């Protein structure tokens, strides 16, 4: 029988890993590490899993060992955060290019400097072009559910891509919530056994991976890699439906909350979406037609689906928990507005950068974003397309001449 237990995000992830029982976990606890690997290492030590746990000497080595173990033909998992993910950078691209379905939990935390271990999405947003599927969780249950689905998605034969299963540092990773833990057998049935396509340990069929690949063939291989993300999008939808059928919780590319008849809406990733739902309810009680689009999948980016869901709005706020310094707003804003433009959907959009380095965002602040959206909807265009939510700043009226950014 499934059991409902109080668990924090880290434990929920480790519990899912125990149930999945991967062949190899290669990890190194660089600061800021989490309890995910620590808890899982205890499962290994206690003989609760069959996993070969490889204690390596850096996160760069961790991802190298993970990629190599996947190339050998194993089901491989790992967990990291922030600077740890940054140190894996070089290998992240190789894992995806070699089409290795390594499953990596990323507890989203800020990058230095200055030194900060709290939540924001700078780490995974920086890795967005590496070729990994990225799925974001709102809460502890989703962190657990997403990780189980990630295995099924990444290993699908026409996908074969690595997956980052992301949860917000501290806000989800270290927060206790009631988690429905499914039966071990049911989880193992759901993920099935891993069937590698070209395992290096198949010595009867030797092959070369990662050879020198110059201007005469590299581009064709990259074009072929590009073609994997459309099946990946479908796999995420299919696996989400199958998960719903088996466990009763449904997942797709994104969740629409009160969006059907909404006039104004927020687009957000991760735990902020949970707070935003409360804000939507407060505003709905006042008669404000507020809605929310909680993006679950950032890679592959569901551009057409997003544009279709947002196209009827009078104004939209895209909330980024990461900044792309010197860029056209945050990464989520840039991609959502691009999707709207390509779809010919003329929706006035503002970018709200919030929560950097773990700065909390309160329901009132989210309600204020909706208030701004009401003004934008009325005026037809934003007077200030970029806002920093919750940062101490000078008075807008008093310093209007300086408020140019």
């Amino acid at each position, binding site marked *: 029988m499934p059991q409902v237990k109080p668990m924090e995000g880290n434990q929920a992830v480790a519990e899912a890993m125990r149930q999945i029982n991967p062949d190899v976990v290669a990890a190194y606890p660089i600061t800021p590490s989490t309890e995910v690997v620590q808890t899982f290492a205890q499962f290994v030590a206690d003989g609760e899993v069959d996993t070969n746990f490889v204690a390596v000497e850096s996160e760069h080595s961790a991802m190298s060992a993970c990629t190599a173990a996947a190339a050998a033909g194993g089901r491989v998992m790992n967990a990291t955060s922030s600077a740890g993910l940054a140190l894996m950078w070089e290998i992240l691209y190789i894992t995806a*290019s*070699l*089409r290795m379905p390594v499953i990596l939990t990323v507890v989203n935390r800020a990058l230095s400097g200055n030194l900060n271990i709290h939540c924001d999405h700078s780490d995974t947003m920086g890795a967005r072009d590496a070729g990994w599927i990225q799925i974001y969780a709102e809460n502890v249950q989703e962190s657990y559910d997403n990780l189980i689905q990630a295995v099924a998605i990444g290993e699908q034969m026409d996908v*074969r891509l690595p997956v980052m299963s992301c949860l917000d540092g501290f806000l989800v990773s270290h927060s206790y919530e009631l988690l429905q833990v499914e039966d071990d057998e049911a989880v193992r049935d759901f993920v099935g056994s891993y069937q590698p396509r*070209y395992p290096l340990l198949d010595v009867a*069929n*030797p*092959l*070369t*991976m*990662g*050879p020198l*690949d110059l201007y*005469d*063939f*590299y*581009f*064709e*291989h990259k*074009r*072929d*890699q590009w*073609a*994997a993300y459309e099946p990946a999008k479908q796999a995420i939808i299919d696996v989400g439906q199958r998960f719903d059928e088996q466990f009763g919780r449904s997942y797709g590319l994104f969740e629409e909350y009160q969006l059907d008849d909404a006039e104004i809406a927020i687009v957000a990733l991760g735990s902020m979406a949970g707070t935003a739902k409360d804000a939507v309810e407060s505003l709905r009680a006042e008669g404000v037609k507020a809605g929310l689009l909680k993006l679950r999948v950032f890679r592959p980016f569901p551009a057409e689906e997003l544009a279709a869901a947002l196209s009827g709005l009078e104004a939209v706020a895209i909330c980024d928990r990461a900044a792309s310094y010197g860029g056209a707003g945050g990464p989520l804003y840039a991609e959502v507005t691009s999707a709207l433009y390509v779809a010919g959907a003329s929706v006035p959009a503002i970018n709200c950068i919030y929560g950097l380095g773990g700065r909390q965002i309160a329901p009132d602040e989210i309600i204020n974003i909706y208030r701004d959206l009401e003004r934008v909807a009325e005026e037809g265009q934003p007077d200030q397309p970029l806002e920093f939510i919750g940062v101490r700043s000078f008075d807008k009226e008093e310093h209007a001449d300086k408020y140019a950014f």
Partner: protein
Amino acid sequence: MSHYKLDTKWHEMVSGGYIPQAGNAVEYDVSGWRTDRPVRDDECCIDCLFCWVYCPDNAVHCEGGSVTGKGIDLVHCKGCGICAAVCPKDCIEMVPESEFED
């Protein structure tokens, strides 16, 4: 990549850039990498085999224990010049490719 030709389309290739056929580097023509071509004076060559031993690409032809008069494999020679550097008799000259018509 050698089992592919230069007109092979992206969707005809093995995903991930793997090479399923083992031992096929011999099919890859790297002559275009070369800026200088080794030219050995076979009159001066004492058949010490240093060039054959040191060549990183097995591009020095050797038959019956002798390299003299056997020539260089110009499909696999990248023009690194190691053979010329190790030749104890200075019999190998690195000549710019621009001086050849083939």
